[in-house]
Structures are given as C-alpha cells and as structure tokens.
C-alpha cells in the first residue's frame, strides 16, 4: 500500500474486473445488470474445471485393485459425500450424490482462494496490465447466488418430481395450516421458499467476505506484526473453508430431500 489510503486499498481489493456489456468496455465499479465480472467468471469456471479434471483423472484410472494416492484421496471425498447424502436423502437418485460432490468440491476450491496471500495475484496481474482482480469468487454475490438459485430450481424440480405438480402446489397452499388459512400458508411458504436460496448464498458470501475483509485489515498493519494476526486468522480459515463448503452441500441435500419426500 504505497501512497494509497487504506480505504482506497480495501476498495480496490473488493472491486471486480468488470466488463460492461452495453458498451463493451472494461469498466470497474459499473452498476446495472448487463455487466460481467470477468474475474469471478474465470476463477469460478477455472476452479470448477480443475475439480472436474482432477476427479476425472482419478475416475478414468479407477481400479478396484490397490488404489494410488490420487484415487485414495478422491475415494475418501466421494465416500464422505456419499455417506452424508445417503444419511439425508433416502430416496434413490442418480443426481443428488454427484451434485453434492460438485457443490462441495467447487465451493471448497472457491473458498480456498481465500488463503492465497491477498496481494499476490492482484500485484502480478497489475504488472501485466490488469488493474482489478478478485481472486476469491465466493466474495461475489453473483457466484453464491448463481449456485443457490440453481439449487432453488432443483428444489422446485424435485418437489414436482416427488409430489407431482398438483401435490407440489397443494402443499404450497395448504401446508401447514390447512385449506382455510390459505393466504397465511402461501405467505409462509413463499418466505420459507425464498429464505432457502438467500440464506445459502448469504451465509457463504458473508463468511468469506468477512474473512477477506479481516485479511485486508491485517495487511494494513505494519509488515513486522502482520504474522501475529494473519497466521491465526489463516489457520482459523483452514477450518472455515471446508466447513462452509460442507454446510452448503448438506443444506442443499436437506432442502432437496424436504422437497422430494412426502411429509
């Protein structure tokens, strides 16, 4: 932070590399719907692709004999996810377990970017002429809501699959107070319905945003004391990073199970 004020420094780190779609120019800080956060898109897609590639490598060479290191690690994760899912979602589904695995690994990798020294990537990229770069996709609401809205679509789909179109809407209107309190049911269910994706997205965003902000504040301290706060905070986030990924996965499966199974 040479010469800039603390506010500018933090502001800079929290600004996406933005592509204005209406004008076709790179314009950080622009508002409106027709903008693309290039850093979020590239980071999230790249991390997801990395997950797919690593797991595909393991799956391609998967053997029932003695597994190698990679297969061991991948199997451990797969079995962990499989166990968690089968404890929650009791019906047979070919989609749920791979979905949970994807969410867990993708969100985990996205959160893991939190542990990269915060000035490392932006300073490398600014030397290459890219002025803004948020390396942590979980700190973009577009990423977390992108995930949670996809989950919402799945919740609706599974609700209809499990209960039929009629059953789904009937539950929406008559649950939990019965047909005579229909408006209350509707409002209640609507709130509950919307609370799911919002809480999913905001929980992830909030946790990682706070983490990132604290790291930024720590990096404002004199260099010789940074380790004293940065190290415990980073160690703490070794816990938070997989925990948030796990929570996102488990809640997704729970929501889908609630939508699918009859009460």
């Amino acid at each position: 932070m040479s010469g800039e004020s603390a506010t500018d420094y933090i502001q800079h780190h929290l600004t996406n590399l933005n592509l204005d779609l209406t004008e076709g120019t790179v314009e950080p800080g622009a508002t409106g719907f027709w903008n693309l956060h290039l850093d979020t898109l590239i980071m999230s897609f790249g991390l997801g692709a990395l997950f797919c590639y690593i797991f595909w490598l393991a799956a391609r060479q998967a053997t029932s004999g003695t597994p190698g290191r990679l297969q061991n690690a991948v199997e451990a994760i797969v079995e962990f996810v499989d166990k968690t899912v089968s404890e929650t979602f009791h019906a047979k589904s070919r989609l749920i377990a791979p979905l949970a695995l994807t969410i867990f690994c993708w969100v985990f990798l996205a959160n893991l970017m939190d542990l990269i020294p915060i000035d490392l990537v932006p300073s490398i990229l600014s030397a290459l002429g890219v002025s803004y770069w948020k390396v942590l996709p979980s700190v973009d609401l577009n990423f977390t809501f992108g995930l949670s809205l996809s989950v919402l679509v799945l919740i609706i789909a599974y609700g209809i699959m499990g209960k039929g179109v009629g059953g789904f809407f009937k539950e929406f209107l008559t649950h939990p107070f019965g047909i005579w309190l229909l408006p209350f049911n509707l409002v209640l269910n609507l709130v509950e319905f919307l609370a799911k994706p919002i809480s999913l997205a905001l929980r992830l965003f909030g946790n990682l945003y706070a983490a990132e902000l604290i790291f930024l504040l720590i990096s404002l301290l004199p260099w010789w004391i940074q380790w004293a706060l940065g190290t415990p905070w980073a160690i703490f986030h070794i816990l938070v990073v997989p925990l948030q990924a796990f929570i996102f996965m488990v809640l997704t499966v729970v929501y889908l199970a609630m939508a699918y199974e009859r009460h």
Partner: protein
Amino acid sequence: MNFSATLWGPMISFVLFVWFTMKYVWPPIQQALADRQQQIADGLAAGERGKQELEKAQSEVEAMLRDAREQATEIINQANKRQDEMIEEARAEARAEADRILAAAREEVEQESRRAREELRKEVSSLAVQASSQILKREVDAKAHQDLIDQLATQL
C-alpha cells in the same frame, strides 16, 4: 456487490460441472468401490471356504490314517495266526512222521526178532536133534540127560 449478468456464469458452469460429475466422475469411482467391496467379500469367503476345506481334509487324513493302522494291525494279527497255524501243522506233521517211522522201526524190529527166534528155534531144534542123536549114539542114559533136555526146551 450488485447483481449482474455474471449470475448466469456460475449457473451455467454449475449445470455443466454437475452433468460432467454425474456422467464421468461418479459412476467409475462408485463402480471401483463396489468392485473392491465385492473382491474383499469374495476373498474373505474364499478364505473361510479354504479353512473349512482344510479342516475337512485333516479329518479325512485322520480317518485314513486310522483305517490304515487298523488294517495293519489286522494284517499283523492274521500273519501271526497263520504263523502259529503253520508251526502247529509242521509240528503235527513231524509228530505223525515220527510216529510212522517209529511204528515202521518197531515193526521191523518185531519182524527181525520173530525171524531170529524162528531161526534160532530151527537151529536149536536141529542142534537138539544133533545132540540127541550124538547122545543116543553113545548109549545115552535118557534119564541122566533128561534134565539137560528139559533145560534146553525151557530156554527156547
């Protein structure tokens, strides 16, 4: 921190990644896990089977050994019996042979003695006749020699 078209990015990638995982990642790994589970189960079952077979084989071996021992004992007993029989037979035969030889010898002795006696009798008679004729030639006193003749007669 505002919503923008960026929202579509993660949604589309999400669908893509989930599809990829579902198609190319999950099934092979699950397959490998299931196969390994099957292999381990098979291995354990095979071990159990092997153990049972070993026990069976051991008991078979024991039975065979017992049979063999019994047979050996029987054979030895038979052999002993046969030996006794043979010895008994041989002894009986030898005894019979001895009896036969003894009988033959006795018979021969008997015959021989009978013949000798016969001969002797003949000789004595002729001797007696000779003697008597001699005596008679020398006007014998029959009375005086009567006891001599009697003595001879008793000796025969």
